[in-house]
């Protein structure tokens, strides 16, 4: 464990709104794929953005207490908290509410994008912080928060501005000097899993509606005996 780790965490814990993460600007990253290859040990993580494909009006940016009106055209914004009052996505409702609110505006959609992060950043003995008693496995769907400095560097790597070895070296430097840059976010992991489950549950309900709608319908399938079964004609929800 690197020197000062516990002290840093303890210090951060004094700031209740921020702890255990490195600062107010941390980004929730959902683990997508963990690569452990001979010459490539990185994890792909997704984050959510607001993508503005069209132009909107009545937008105001608050920059250093000054309100600046602007028009939206093709910008991308990284989502990092549900609202000004909450730092973390602690419930599926907070996720759903934010996404719905954004997409209720014509021309705005919530998209997901990804970055690569060196696996060693998640190692509890090197860089990855977790408040859990047991070591946290790097698993698909879990949420980790990463510092904005690291995030910026990861984007630079994704855009092929810096090569992998430079990126990894800079991550090591970041670990040597600064506060914790990567932290497992237990509550957000639960919240995003619960939110995902709700979407799949909704899809199943949607499937039944679709099946019963003569204008739309669902696919037929073939059973093990090779018989063609029309799902529109049966009442079971074999699949969704």
């Amino acid at each position, binding site marked *: 464990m690197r020197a000062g780790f516990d002290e840093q965490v303890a210090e951060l814990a004094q700031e209740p709104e921020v702890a255990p993460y490195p600062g107010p600007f941390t980004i929730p990253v959902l683990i997508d794929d963990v690569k452990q290859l001979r010459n490539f040990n990185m994890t792909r993580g997704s984050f959510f953005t607001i993508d503005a494909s069209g132009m909107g009006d009545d937008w105001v940016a608050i920059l250093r207490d000054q309100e600046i009106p602007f028009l939206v055209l093709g910008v991308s914004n990284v989502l990092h908290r549900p609202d000004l009052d909450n730092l973390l996505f602690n419930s599926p409702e907070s996720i759903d509410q934010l996404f719905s609110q954004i997409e209720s505006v014509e021309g705005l959609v919530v998209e997901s994008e990804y970055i690569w992060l060196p696996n060693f950043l998640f190692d509890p003995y090197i860089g990855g912080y977790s408040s859990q008693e047991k070591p946290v496995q790097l698993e698909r*769907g879990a949420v980790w928060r990463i510092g904005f400095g690291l995030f910026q560097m990861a984007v630079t790597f994704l855009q092929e501005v810096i090569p992998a070895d430079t990126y990894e070296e800079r991550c090591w430097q970041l670990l040597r000097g600064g506060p914790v840059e990567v932290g497992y976010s237990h509550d957000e992991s639960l919240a995003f899993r619960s939110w995902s489950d709700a979407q799949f549950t909704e899809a199943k309900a949607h499937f039944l509606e679709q099946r019963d709608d003569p204008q739309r319908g669902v696919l037929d399938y073939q059973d093990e005996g090779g018989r063609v079964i029309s799902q529109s004609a049966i009442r079971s929800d074999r699949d969704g």
Partner: protein
Amino acid sequence: MGKLSITLIDVGWGDSLLIDIEDRTGQSHYGLVDCNDTSTQRSSYLFVKRFLERKGVDLTQGQRIFDFVLLTHGHADHANGIQAMMSNFKTDWFWYPKSVDFGGFAKLISYANRYPQKVNRHQAIDNTKLLPGIGGVELSVLWPPYVAGGVYDPNNENNNSIVLVLTLDQVSFVLSGDCEAGNWDQIVTEIPGIPGLAVFQAPHHGAVNGVFTETGNTPWLDALPDGTRIAMSSHTRPHDHPAPEVILELNNRRIEPFRTDQHYHLTFSTDGTLDANGQPNVVEHWSHA
């Protein structure tokens, strides 16, 4: 006579394939398999938009462009930007496999649930599902198998990849997502039944685990008919896709793959006929070498 074209769009790391079908009446039908766009890099969107404009499609009317959009599996380098594509171009069908729980994939499902005006209908598919023919082209699913109440492989999303066959009359193309080599022992039993297999997309961008099983076997490579063109959505950064071992194996078999990292956008077209030697009539085209 109809025409089937598939284009492997160079999206860097990741996959995106445009399906262009011209039916016997000359009417066009479009499909999209995967996407890897971000808010700042819209390779797939720009390719499709320019392609449609060149074909004289009026995009100002907001009509539905795609007959289907298919997500092979729920990994970000195949799923990013699909929502924007469906939002911009609308689709009749959105197909995807049952997938391991993941917020990014769930966001796509959420979008499909909520915006029927953009996504007319959507459904998880597997190799028991019967896909509709589109413009004279038959679509069939070789993988994944149906699993009651769950996903095929809860531990490796690649293995849930949809493997799709597109057949126009006597010629077929196979698109394989990231379906790893270990699954192909089962899948290859279907290959002899595929008419005129002419183009095969190497699984997982030519990664080692897309070609070699854990015991070093190469099931799909061994099963392909001689002369089958092998295409890859490839990119060598952040790491080698295709892997040097795969290129070596192909070289040993005297196969020269078509690669998006070398050929840029890659298009294969067929009219569904065979030549005098019984080989599929296929034309390759790429933007630059």
